[in-house]
């Protein structure tokens, strides 16, 4: 397959620093809640399917677009495709979902959506990403699973 990438020359942004380990985190008795930063850390290193760059470097995901409610067990993530006609948007959304499915405790209900107004077929993609059965079906497809695994294996 020699398809050229949708966005051949994307803007690359600075990588944020690693989360610093605080003294409370080293304290056995304090319990640290899962926060936005932690969830962001789970998905920032997912690779873009087209470039050898992470979603963070392309600013597809940003910490300010991650929301969590620990009491209600809700997680909501908005991601921003690099260009409005990006054909990989669904795949990126799927990768984020799969990564969170594997890495978050099962008590959370996770919603992954495209940031409003950043993609041409925003609603269609959102609908696909919210459909559990379609996700399950997608994960039966070996080719797709392979691409997703390659995207998230470095995170």
């Amino acid at each position, binding site marked *: 397959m020699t398809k050229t990438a949708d966005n051949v020359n994307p*803007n*690359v*942004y*600075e*990588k944020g620093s690693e989360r610093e*380990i605080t003294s409370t*985190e*080293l304290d*056995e008795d304090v*319990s*640290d809640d*899962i926060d936005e930063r*932690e969830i962001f*850390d*789970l998905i920032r290193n997912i690779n873009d399917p087209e470039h*050898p*760059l992470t979603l963070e*470097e392309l600013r597809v995901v940003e910490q300010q677009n991650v929301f969590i409610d620990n009491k209600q067990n809700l997680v909501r993530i908005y991601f921003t495709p690099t260009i409005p006609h990006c054909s990989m948007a669904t795949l990126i959304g799927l990768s984020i979902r799969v*990564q969170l499915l*594997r*890495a*978050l*405790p*099962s*008590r959370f209900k996770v919603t992954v959506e495209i940031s409003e107004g950043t993609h041409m077929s925003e609603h269609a993609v959102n609908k696909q990403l919210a459909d559990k059965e379609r996700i399950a079906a997608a994960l039966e497809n*070996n*080719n797709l*699973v*392979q*691409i*997703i*695994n*390659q995207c*998230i*294996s470095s*995170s």
Partner: protein
Amino acid sequence: MEPVWFSSDLADEIIKNNDIFEQTHSIVTDIMSGRLQITILVENMAGVLTNKEVDNRERGMRFFTKILQEIPKDFLTDMQIKFISKFYIDRLKDNHKVIPAVLEGYLYIIDMKNYSVQLSGEYFNVLFREVACQSQVRQDRYNIYLTISKLLEKDVQYMKTLGPDFIYGVISSMDGERDPRNLLFLFNFLPKFLAQIPLGHLVEEMFEVISCYYPIDFHPSPNDPAPVTRNDLAAALCPCLYAIPEFAEHCLVLLIEKLDSSLRVAKIDSLVLLTKSCETFKAESYGPFLKALWSSLQREISHKTDDVLKLAAHESLSALVSKLSTTANTDQSFENFIKGILISMQTALAESTTVAQFVQATKILLTAANASKESCEIITKAMIPAVLAYYEFKTSSKLQIASIEFLGDLYELAQHWGVLDQIQKQVDEIPQLCLTAASERTKEYQVVGFRTLIRAKDALKIDLVVPFVEILSYNIQHLEDDEVLSVSVETVHAIARKYPELIMDFVVKGKCDLENLIQDKTALQKRLNLLSSLASIDDFTKVIIGEMLKVISSSNEEASKVIQALSSSISNSSLYSYDKVAQIESDHGLIDSVLTWLYSEIATSNESLEHGYSLVSNTICSLPADKQLNILSNHTSALIEKCSMNEANFQMLECLYRSIRPNVYNKHFEEILSLALRLALNNDKDMVRLKACYLMAHFLNKAENGQKFELMYEGLKNNLSSCNRDDLKICPRLIFLYGWITKALVMRGSDLFQFWLKKILLSISNPECSQQGSEAIKIIMTDFPDCLSFRHHCRTSLLYKQRMFLTFTKITENMSICPETKEAYILSWAYILEKTPKSVLNNEVNKIASLAIDALEYDNKDLLIVMIDILIYFVQAKTVALAQSLQTILPRIINLTTYVKSMDVRIKSLQCLYDIANSYDTRLLLPYKQDILIDLAPSLDDKKRLVRNMAVKARTRWFLVGAPGENKEI
């Protein structure tokens, strides 16, 4: 009856009978003994050598060759060899079936001592005319190459006279060779050949034949037991391509073409070739290709992910620049090349939006600048002003910081190549920028500003000193951050070395207000740290130390702070050399003052006393032996007396004697030793007992071999054997002391330690004191900064930890362990394994692995952490023994992922799971995959974030086991 080879029946015998080939040895013996002339033998073979049947002639030649192989190399005369050679050359014209034996036989002939190299001209003549090398089988082709190679070694001069026909013959004989082993031989042989035989007009032909293999694309057959690898071939081919300067043009064309290839190995091979080619090719040859080379190099260096490729490109660039710089004075192309680099990199720097991009461009410039003096001058001259301007653009803070660091790198390169004088004007601006950065409020700017100033301190002009000092002294007095503090002290130190008078006025007398040192209590400790660091510079020593001692001897309440500051600075040997400390002691009487202070404070028993003790011992260890003796004789008697009144005073005695040199000895030793022994067992204070053990260990470790050591050792042993072991209070102390004795002995490399180690093991197997036994093992294996260290003139035999490990392994082999003591036993193992270099463990994999697996059942945090670490090490090394026990290990480790008492255990066990998934064969892991994924789920919701992070790592890795897209190297 005479054997058959004495008659002409031999010919028939060779034709009919295979067994005759077994008897060549006897024939050779007969020839050697003179009973058979070789001429007779050949006559007897005539029937078969000239037989009409090809197959029979082949047998004859084979037989003859075998004789030649076995006959000693120096036996035949030159005349005999000449005839045999002529015969063999003639046979080259025979049927193709006969050729292999001829080729092999000739190989033996040229090995003969009396072989004249003149004969080879005709041989090659006929060989290249009659025999098509590439239609022979592998071994015969090899024999041809070997013949050429051997003759070349024998007489190069003659081979040169053979002229173009010979060279052409060589070229055509190897043209099309396909066998990897033959190729490897040829590639190794060709550079020698090329270096010695001038090719004349055949340069291009020769290069064509060699270069058709480039780049090597080869996969060894999977059934080959000792395969030739692609890398072997590639490494061997490379030197052939740049063997002679004449290849330059052809080689560079080829190389540029392959650099543009999409194949990764082709690129890497080409880069390596380019790097190496700079050794032989002339600088001028690169001229026409520079543009193309640079654009290729630039492309490879800016590759995003492939680090190997990047590194190779950097090396090529460096080699190329340094080669070209040799023509810097005669040729414009070098300067143009460097300017081309400068222009494209300046564009890249200006366009970069992330630090990664910025650093990539700076790295290229640094590589080029590092390659030669000339390039360094051009680049630093252009780049320093450019970077200074870049900083002013107010790009992102990270880029600004990176640009200052880049300045520091450039400065160091300029310093390295000694071109600072030529770029004086540019360099002078650097400190100003450092000042700008250091004046920012954020930590990152300050740190990088100071660090760069330290690197470029020689460029600092006097007018900038005051502003720097203002910032620095503010930092030192008001900031809390350790990193900024230490770098600030370092900077003051650096400036003080260049401008001592200024610092003296502004800092020592001004900001720190030395004369009224303790009036101002705020930030006193920080000021003291700065002063004690400055005191190591000669100009400051007298003033500062004098003032500090005044504070100490006035027994002011702040004295402890002074002592603490001095103690931490003096123990830093990069600041204070031995000579410096000795000088301070003899000028100021440091030890006397500190001891007086200690004595007055000893009743308070606060922690600052420890600083006092270590200050004394650190000072003592720097002194020469005679001064040490002096000080000891001044104080010992009085101190021993004081000890009899208050045993706490023993600590002062200890700090005096702790770090004496091995050859220092006085009459008090025995008295002190027995005092120490008594205190170690009977004193009620933990600290005093510990110090007593320290001192005994030091004495034992340092005592000179021979009588002195033996007396001391025997005395100690007798004293200890008379101790009452049943006393519940004494027993743990005794085991503790055994630990110290063992440590001292094993570190001095004495075998006697085994005796004490056995005693400790005995205590481990006793349920009542097994705990203390394992503590003793811990003492032996742990390094203490102020005990038995090199600084205190102690002997530390090499590899003593390995020795402990081996001895412990041996002694415990037949030890019976009851269930009550098993935990202590495994814990002792853990202490030993923790400190033993991991590579040593590989010899005892099975034993250690089973210990580690056993240990997973015990509820002991320290034990678990060490043992899981060991397991992780073995797993990462893909140890087979563990792969077979996965069924046992996995449930236990899974259990530990929810170990409540320690998050470290949880993290380590999760990491172990991750590594298992990463290291072992999918086939072994698949049966457990589903269970583990379910068992790991609870850890995702662990209350500690660090545990969760590792759980995520482990669980996402296990998801990949056997799944499509898994990238596993096995």
